[in-house]
């Protein structure tokens, strides 16, 4: 693999954030990343660039500046409407070669985790997945990237000293979004798709936005999650009503998914999704390690179980002992009263 000389490395400057857009609108994780990039750029006395690819996205540049971007690099093209990883990867690699960023961070979302590894291979650089911490060595410009591995059982710090850019994905809700400042000014650089060869690309035939089916556990502030203790589909109907009441999303343990009570998209854990919500209410989930690794970083964990000795009841911030079929309706009643 081509490693860069010190001279070559020094040509790479600025911290890039790949904006996460869904249906043409920029997602909150992007602002979190801009906030993190700001700290890194300040340590290197360089700029934060927000890179936005999409169709009809130009209007959102100002918001990115308000959150801390100095430059917004925009590629607004109807052909980027669906999510075509191949096309986006080619555009990004071209931009990386042209502007030489020192660091590129993106969101560890479905899209980010599909696109960014493709870009990293094409751009001959390292990529650290799912970082929970980013720190800058201000002397060398090396990014110290901390990430959980082995289902969260160890934290590894990763460095890519000989390659630029250094790339990382970060999960939503790990970094804090800064307070936007409407008075900040920045510049917008417009780039076209140019010669991007769209041959041999995949065709996006149809996009289904099913608000109800949309699980979006990674963005949810509150997750109401159920396990085998929910006893069946009806149990999950109760959880859906509970979640609707608090504006949360519904999660599940593998046992509940395997029993066919709820689709896999809801599964939290080692073979499901990793979540980091502000509040996680585990209903009838014993808390085997494979489940815990997917939710142990939530800010506050509440467990409801009739057995007080389960691992979940031991690790929770609040452990409620009792029959969840009696307790959950009471909680919903209390919330109605508020």
């Amino acid at each position, binding site marked *: 693999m081509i490693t860069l000389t010190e001279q070559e490395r020094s040509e790479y400057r600025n911290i890039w954030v790949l904006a996460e857009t869904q249906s043409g609108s920029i997602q909150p994780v992007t602002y979190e990343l801009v906030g993190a990039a700001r700290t890194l750029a300040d340590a290197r006395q360089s700029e934060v660039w927000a890179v936005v690819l999409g169709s009809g996205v130009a209007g959102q540049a100002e918001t990115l500046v308000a959150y801390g971007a100095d430059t917004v690099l925009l590629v607004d093209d109807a052909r980027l409407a669906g999510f075509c990883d191949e096309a986006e990867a080619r555009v990004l690699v071209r931009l990386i070669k042209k502007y030489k960023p020192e660091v590129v961070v993106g969101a560890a979302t479905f899209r980010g985790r599909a696109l960014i*590894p493709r870009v990293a291979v094409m751009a*001959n650089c390292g*990529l650290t997945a799912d970082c929970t911490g980013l720190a800058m060595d201000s002397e060398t410009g090396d990014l110290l990237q901390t990430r959980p591995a082995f289902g969260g059982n160890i934290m590894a710090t990763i*460095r890519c000293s000989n390659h630029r850019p250094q790339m990382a994905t970060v999960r939503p809700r790990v970094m804090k979004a800064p307070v936007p400042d409407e008075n900040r000014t920045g510049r917008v650089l417009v780039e076209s798709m140019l010669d991007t060869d769209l041959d041999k690309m*995949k065709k996006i*035939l149809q996009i*289904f936005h099913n608000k109800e089916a*949309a699980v979006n556990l990674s963005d949810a502030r509150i997750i109401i999650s159920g396990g085998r203790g929910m006893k069946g589909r009806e149990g999950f109907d109760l959880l859906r009503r509970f979640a609707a009441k608090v504006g949360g999303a519904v999660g599940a343990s593998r046992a509940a998914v395997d029993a066919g009570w709820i689709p896999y998209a809801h599964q939290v854990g080692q073979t499901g999704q990793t979540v980091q919500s502000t509040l996680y209410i585990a209903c009838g989930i014993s808390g085997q390690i494979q489940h815990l690794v997917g939710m142990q970083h939530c800010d506050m964990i509440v467990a409801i179980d009739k057995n007080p000795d389960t691992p979940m009841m031991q690790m929770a911030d609040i452990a409620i002992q009792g029959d969840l079929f009696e307790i959950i309706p009471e909680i919903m009643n209390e919330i109605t009263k508020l």
Partner: protein
Amino acid sequence: MKIVVCIKQVPATSDAKIDPETKRIIREGQKAILNPFDLYALEEAIQLKETYGGEVIAVTMGPPKADAVLREAIALGADRAVHLCDSAFGGSDTWATSYVLAKAIEKIGGVDLVLCGKQAVDGDTAQVGPGIAAHLDWVQATYVMSVERVGTTSITVKRMHEEGYDLCELSFPAVLTVVKDINTPRVPTLKGRLAALQCEIPVWKPADIGAEPSKIGLAGSPTRVVKTQPPEPRQTRTVRITGTPQECAKALIRELRLRSLV
């Protein structure tokens, strides 16, 4: 259809042991299994072969004992297997791993489809599938939840994302990574187990696949693990709530309100 399934052997538990010197995972003396997600990739490949004909080839890069997961794949219905095994492959990160797998796929030749699991449960990166596609310059679809249509020159799949899913058509050759929704893996048959015991599995070294030494192993890996440490323990003093359902509910709401959560 000629299908390659990339499978990985991973430690059976999440209790990883790390070598303090090299910062690498200690794989010796640990019970190892086939990465759970790769079972779905294998199953999908076998089902496609059963419906449309062709061949399923399981490929792994790993130490000698990773031979076990290839035999498991044969037992389940893969036609043959290839083991990429050489000390020079050791220390590969996802860049180098996907390079080695891509070179092996080129050497196999005439491949229409590569299937990978969503991610490996040890590294949890989900980077190798798209990495293979990038090295080969093939189209890719990740988090595939179903195969909708198979034509002579293309395949149409449903791909999962935050807001639902999309339907996309990929011309062969293509790389897919699959999620659990896609199928229910079978269990091996007796005949399969016998085939697994008897089959010869070729071992390929870097020279066999024409891999450049500078692109494999540690030399080919841009990332370096410089430190590992246990995660910070959760600092909690569990508040225990008992009583009648109504008392429990009231007490919970009080706690949540204190923290402005409701």
